[in-house]
């Protein structure tokens, strides 16, 4: 059954808890490491550049360490669902195109990328007719162009199309 598959767990609460805490632990460890490099003691004229960051890192490591330890000890947590497959799929429907969009900005400029992104989303998830889709997508980009480039003269990233049109 499709529904059942959707309800199945994609990640348990415990797995997610441990993964996120471990990532933060890593950040904390990095902070400690760099603080030691630049000096982390209280010198005569007050704390050195790494003094605060050292303790910040230490606190991150201690608190996330305990979180990891507790999660691993908690059996019940492993049975709880963090995210179901269906939900994850929904989220990925947005997140993946958004990541692609952000990468595209640096390649083809923000205006073309935005048009494509809005268009894709409306067509794919909203199932709007082509006319509406193209209308909204193009209108948004043109509006943004006028607002930023013309009125506020704030240059945003541009790509080959704008160069070809002589708009950059």
């Amino acid at each position, binding site marked *: 059954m499709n529904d059942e598959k959707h309800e199945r767990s994609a990640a348990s609460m415990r797995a997610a808890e441990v993964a996120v805490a471990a990532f933060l632990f890593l950040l904390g460890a990095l902070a400690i490491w760099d603080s030691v490099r630049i000096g982390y003691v209280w010198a005569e*004229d007050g704390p050195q550049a790494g003094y605060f960051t050292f303790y910040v890192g230490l606190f991150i490591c201690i608190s996330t360490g305990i979180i990891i330890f507790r999660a691993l000890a908690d059996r019940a947590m492993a049975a709880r669902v963090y995210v179901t497959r269906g939900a994850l799929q929904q989220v990925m429907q947005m997140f993946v195109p958004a990541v692609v969009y952000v990468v595209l900005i640096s390649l083809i400029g923000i205006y073309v990328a935005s048009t494509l992104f809005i268009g894709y989303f409306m067509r794919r998830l909203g199932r709007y007719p082509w006319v509406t889709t193209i209308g909204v997508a193009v209108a948004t980009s043109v509006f943004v162009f006028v607002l930023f480039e013309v009125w506020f*003269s*704030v*240059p945003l990233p541009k790509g080959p199309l704008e160069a070809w049109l*002589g708009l*950059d």
Partner: protein
Amino acid sequence: MSSKFSKLLRVSALSLGVLALALAGSPARAWEPTKTVEFIVPAGTGGGADQMARFIQAVVQKHNLMKEPLVVINKSGGAGAEGFLDVQGAKGDPHKLIITLSNLFTTPMATGVPFNWKNLTPVSMMALDEFVLWVNADTPYKTVQEYTDAAKKAGPGKFKMGGTGSKQEDQIVTVALEKATGAKFTYVPFKGGGAVATQLVGKHVDSSVNNPIEAVAQWRAGKLRPICVFDDARLPYKDKVTADMAWGDIPTCKEQGVNMSYVMLRGIFMPGGVPAEAVNYYVDLLAKVRATPEWADFMKTGAFNQTALTGEAYRKWVADAEVLHHELMKEAGFLAK
């Protein structure tokens, strides 16, 4: 020889340009921007460099000196490193300018960021910013000697010098002053020049090396007293700023026997590898900006040193300044390890 030759070339190119302009009165000029010109400020909004950049933009706009728009963009990250790296990376792009302050030298030296001004094309020095030693008007000090003697008497580190940023121009001036007089200060870095002046008025620090424009209001209100200016000659401004003093009445530190001077570059650069015609275009544009009455007012308000250089003379000035900064920073122990 090569410098002479290029100077000759430049002069002839310029006079040719002027000639062509005079003869035809038409856009016979070799190069003109074809799109928006980005004017990068390697500092935050509201600071001295930002003010000057936006002022230039306003003058260009008001007098219609350029057909395409000039847009000011702040790239202040990493003590300006972000802006410099951006321009360094835009090799050959003639639609990009950058205004500099001393962080042109200090940022790469103090942080080890892979940037050097030699990868940029110097366009024009617009002015030099002055540094003045200020104390609170309630204190008895009238000369550098009196002040530094008091600092020495109090013991090393007892007197606090407020300044903008760390390992940048204000701290360099402080270190140079210490070296020249033997006094030892505790340097306290703040975020902006206005904050430093207020801290001095509020007596949280004992002195500052604010730029004239940062402290002038408090001077006029009788809260601060200028001791001396860190330049080779007195400022040329004779109009009274307070009831009885003009900028020109402030003695130089050298007059008072402290053998040091420091000025800060306010200059314009372009990315490397740009066509010479483009450089000439901007040299010409900026010369027109400097010729406006607005600019003269601006220079007077900020009590700037109006030295303006271009071409080889400018390049040489920058090269000398780099050596000087390297020495000062090395002695102070500010160089990146």
